[in-house]
């Protein structure tokens, strides 16, 4: 396994196979908790932890041929138990060390169990790749997803509340206040973006922009290919 392959494996989750923007997986938390950047960061941390370890465990139980023959016929229940265990551990750790964030994210922490990204990666990647490769894949996917939800929450928080709350747990209090821009313009933040409506609109518009860019790219490639032919 050379360096280039590892790098490609890691970065494919960022753009080419971004779970949220390209394959449209894990939409529920991406819409529900993105009212603040901080929530997106917290969700990202939880997902990062679960996805790396679930990919590792899944690839460990399907790696050796003998074990694989045993696991494969009942793989769905096996995966569910593995993932649920990891989620319970995450839940407990977050309740102990990040209590306010745990309360804000609420039901979406236990719901990581049924997040399609985790199941999708276990089924599509980890079940027929080596443990280390699977961990790299998990890390890339989780970071790509975190980046995507941070992007959505940036739009929603700036437009909806006029702040950027990067991290405000315990003693840390990293909050950028952008109200001066609104004061300068003489308007108030658009409340709608903090509400459920804002989530749908923001996500829909981002997806449309991505589609427009990739359409334009495809068009260009087509024209270039036609030009070569002539």
């Amino acid at each position, binding site marked *: 396994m050379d360096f280039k392959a590892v790098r490609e494996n890691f970065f494919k989750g960022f753009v080419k196979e971004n779970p949220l923007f390209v394959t*449209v*997986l894990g*939409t*529920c*938390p991406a*819409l*529900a908790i993105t009212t603040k950047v901080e929530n997106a960061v917290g969700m990202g941390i939880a997902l990062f932890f679960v996805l790396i370890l679930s990919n590792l465990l899944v690839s460990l139980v399907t790696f050796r041929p003998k074990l694989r023959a045993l696991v494969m016929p009942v793989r*769905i*229940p096996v995966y*569910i*138990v593995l993932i*649920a*265990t990891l*989620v*319970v551990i995450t*839940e*407990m750790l977050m309740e102990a060390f990040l209590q306010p964030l745990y309360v804000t994210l*609420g*039901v979406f922490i*236990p*719901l990581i*169990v*049924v*997040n*399609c990204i985790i*199941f999708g990666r276990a089924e599509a990647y980890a079940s027929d790749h080596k443990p280390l490769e699977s961990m790299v894949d998990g890390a890339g996917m989780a970071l790509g997803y975190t980046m995507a939800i941070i992007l959505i929450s940036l739009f929603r928080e700036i437009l909806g509340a006029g702040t950027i709350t990067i991290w405000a747990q315990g003693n840390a209090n990293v909050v950028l206040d952008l109200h001066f821009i609104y004061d300068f313009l003489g308007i108030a933040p658009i409340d709608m973006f903090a*509400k*459920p*409506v804002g*989530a*749908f*609109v923001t*996500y*829909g*518009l981002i*997806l*449309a*922009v991505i*589609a*427009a860019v990739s*359409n334009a790219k495809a068009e260009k490639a087509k024209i270039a290919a036609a030009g070569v032919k002539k």
Partner: protein
Amino acid sequence: MTNLLTIAFTAFFIENVLLYQFLGICSFIGVGKKRSSSLGMGLAVVVTIILAGMATWAIYRYVMEPLEIGYMKTIVFILVIAALVQMMETIIKKFSPALYKALGIYLPLITTNCAVLGVAITNITRDYSFAEMLVYSAAIPLGYLFVMYIYAIIREKLELNPVPKAFRGVPIAMILAALLAIIFSRFGGLI
């Protein structure tokens, strides 16, 4: 009684599972394209959530609480739901092949529908009594069915209209959901 009515109304309109709580969005976007499939999925979800709500509530109250293993609820609930869905599939297949044909393909998808696990967990965190749990677990999936059906009707009409190229598929579906969410957010003023 008023308490139960409030729970039912809130769960159906104000805290609508799709447009306010954002549970089960995957199926909303995927299955909500056609009226027939949205009806099938919706009915399957109604039955599953009511049964799963009762099963998980009873297990939590009478087994997990006395044993003080409440922290295990995520693992236990997902296993109960998976087993329940499997059981339902077998039973329906045996007794009503026609119903199985209509609901069959949606049943396996339900295990990973976050609405089911979400309702089971909310029943516990809100500390509902049996009657409250039953009303809540019925009102939530009925709200799901209602919104999904309206959504499917609009999307069927949308197919015939010239949507800008970049918006085709998921983006316009999201914008449509946003419009529905605006309507539903206004129900909050009624209580």
